[in-house]
């Protein structure tokens, strides 16, 4: 009997050794479960019930914050960054345009040109109109109308000259300003100074865009949020005031 037991023990040793890690697993103690629940609750999951569904970026921001917190507290996956790029809808951009703050567009290229034309159209006449082409609306007006005291387009010399030709009416009304960053003539070494990254600064938030179609309402819009972005936004806000000064100087020059 003893011999048989010993033989069994020796034979089962490798198998029993597995209990070593099995025993390390938590088999569902009540206190531990409560602990997990409290950890999840510390991440304020109830905020998910109060998401603002008007804008996708706000939804994503709320979901991301909770997910990141839950992953970190329960699974110890804490590597997710605090700053995130979120897609923004065209409605959000329009909302930002309707907030009554100054708008700044920085960059060069076809996207900036299209956006400038859009601003030129909606700013013309001090009001906003839905613009259609053959019955197909191409530009839409934000519900509350556009309220932009002044819009600035910061771009390189060549694009600035082109836009000044195109947007004569809005420029004459003084609601739109094209600020050329560069010398008297088209200077390619200067246009590199403005990053290739096209950026719209509206309603106190930065928006990036990736122009794909002809009109801005179809583009991919991105916004970023987080502690780093907030501080970059702080600097960008200051840059706006310098651009405003620069545009005033350009007027002074004439």
């Amino acid at each position: 009997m003893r011999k048989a037991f010993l033989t069994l023990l020796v034979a089962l040793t490798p198998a029993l050794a597995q209990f070593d890690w099995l025993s390390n697993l938590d088999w569902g103690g009540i206190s531990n479960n409560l602990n997990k629940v409290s950890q999840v609750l510390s991440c304020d999951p109830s905020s998910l019930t109060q998401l603002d569904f008007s804008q996708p970026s706000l939804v994503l921001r709320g979901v991301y914050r909770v997910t990141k917190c839950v992953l970190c507290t329960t699974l110890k996956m804490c590597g997710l960054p605090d700053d995130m790029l979120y897609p923004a809808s065209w409605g959000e951009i329009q909302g930002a345009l309707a907030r009554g703050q100054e708008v700044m567009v920085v960059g060069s290229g076809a996207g900036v040109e299209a956006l400038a034309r859009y601003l030129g159209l909606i700013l013309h006449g001090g009001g906003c109109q839905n613009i259609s082409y053959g019955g197909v609306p191409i530009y839409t007006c934000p519900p509350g109308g556009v309220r932009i005291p002044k819009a600035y387009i910061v771009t390189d010399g060549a694009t600035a000259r082109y836009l000044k030709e195109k947007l004569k009416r809005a420029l004459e009304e003084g609601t739109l300003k094209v600020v050329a960053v560069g010398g008297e003539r088209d200077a390619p070494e200067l246009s590199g100074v403005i990053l290739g990254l096209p950026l719209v600064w509206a309603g106190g938030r930065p928006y990036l865009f990736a122009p794909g179609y002809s009109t801005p309402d179809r583009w991919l819009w991105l916004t970023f949020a987080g502690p780093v972005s907030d501080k970059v936004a702080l600097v960008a806000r200051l840059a706006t005031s310098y651009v405003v000064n620069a545009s005033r100087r350009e007027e002074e020059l004439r």
Partner: protein
Amino acid sequence: MRWVWALFLFSLALAQGPTYEDWTKYLLSAPDYRLEQVLKGKWPYLEVLRKDRLRDYQGGATTPEAQAHEFYLPLSSLEATQEVARDLRKAWQRFEERYYWRVITELNNPAFWFAYCLAGVKGPELNPPLPEFKLMVPSEGVDTAFLQAATRSSPLDMGAWASAGLHKLDRYLPVPQVDPKEFCDDLGMQILPLMYIPGFKVLVQGYEVFRTPGYPSRPFWFNEAEANARVERAMQKAFTDYYADYLKDVAKALLTPRPSTPQDLLSLLPRDFRSLGSPKAYLPVPWQGHLLGAGGVVAPVYTELFPTDLTALWDQVQAIWNTYKGLIDRAGTEVEKAYLYVHFYRSAKTLFDSRAFLGLPGVDTLKGNLENLVNAPLRALTGAIPVLKGCAGDLDRVVSCAATALMTLDQAVKAKGEVEKLTGGKPQNEPLKAKEAPGLWKYEEAKRWLPPSSLPVYEAFGYTSFFQATNFLEVTTVPDIRNVDLSQVNLGNWMGWAWSQLSRLVVYWHTPLTIDIRVEYCPPCVIAYPSLPLEGPAQPLGVPPYVLPFALERAHWRWVSVPEGYEVPGVRGAPYTLVSDLSAYALDLRALYRPLLGR
């Protein structure tokens, strides 16, 4: 010489060739380099025209604007402009240090406050070296037709802004290189709110029994909200106060003449040729001022007033020859390459024949050198190109004959005559002279590649070098991430950048603890005492934004050469005018320079 640009009246409309458009507004014109004037106590200067106003004036306009179409710019010494560039660098370095140390001190208050604001720990003073001279050929200045022709075979080195990559510290040290008072203003000791609860580990009899998660690199708890608020407050302070100081420093460095009184300036001028040397003076001319959206601050420069060292002069002339030949070889037709000898010989001859060199020993040797350089190759060409066939005799005669022959050829091209016969089958489609462009435009455009020099060289070759400074809007990090040279795999370059970036990270330093519990024979008792861990007494914890951002205007400078009668690049408005934001620095420079220039 004085109204060289008037030559464009003779030229005809062209289909091809350069396009000097209407917005070519500012022309360098008629420099007055007369050394006799200098000896009479007048500062050398040059003249600049505003083309649109000049046209109005010639058209009979009598408005004050049309009257003010001519401007006089005093020359500065190259060395003095380098010193200005150094001051611009120093202003940036001061801002960069104040920005970082304000953020890091405020964030790590009170530890850093004690170290810097109270004890005044400080590294060596900022002392940037004299920035080296770099010539830039601005693409907004060179005509596109020339550029296309010159870069047809291979890309051409156009230089860059002399300031490119210089907006950084010379050494990144773990201590501030400015007086701590500069970044400690209105910063008090701040102990509350509590910033963190230190991470710790517990040892019993030397055996570790517990450690907090992330020990030692993470504290047990960190007040992230307060850290963010502190960084944001410090950044706000840096950008409102310190950045304003930076702009002030730049404006002062750029707009203050050195020396600043006419008496001091005039006392720099010598009384005889022998001691002309190169008086060190910086006489800036604001062209609306350097701010974003305005224009620039310019100062035409000389290396020396008069070249006393004739060997050095010959080296310079040879350098000019090499530059010239290199460019015309790229951009010129066969006939133009031949004419290069004529053109160069004439300019260099004018230089050596000028009255300043009269009777100087050694000038004849230079003339001999010049003949040796030009004679044989030019004569070889006169045999090969039919239109030059008749040119014979001594070198001077050959040269003037060749010049006349070339004008004949030019007229033939314009009249669409039998060009092939004149050139011996070599193609010459475009005229040598262009509308609105004085001189032969290709030779003139090539002068943008010539280095700064002395007054007689400028006069003979017909160009002047300028120092220019202006502000750009830049989006970057501090230290500038774009300073890493990505074009090459160079360990030193990467290491240098990594060090600068590492030493300028935004971090909170926290101290982890070790709690040691031991049974000692004292008589037997249990002692628990905290101590600093072996892992390091202080641990960095990154705080957003981790790396400092920068997105504002910054002062850049460059040196450019401008051919006589051609466009001065990178300026707008009119000289001696300032935008209103700079009026606080507005010395009336025109009034200051009037007694110097005598006009």
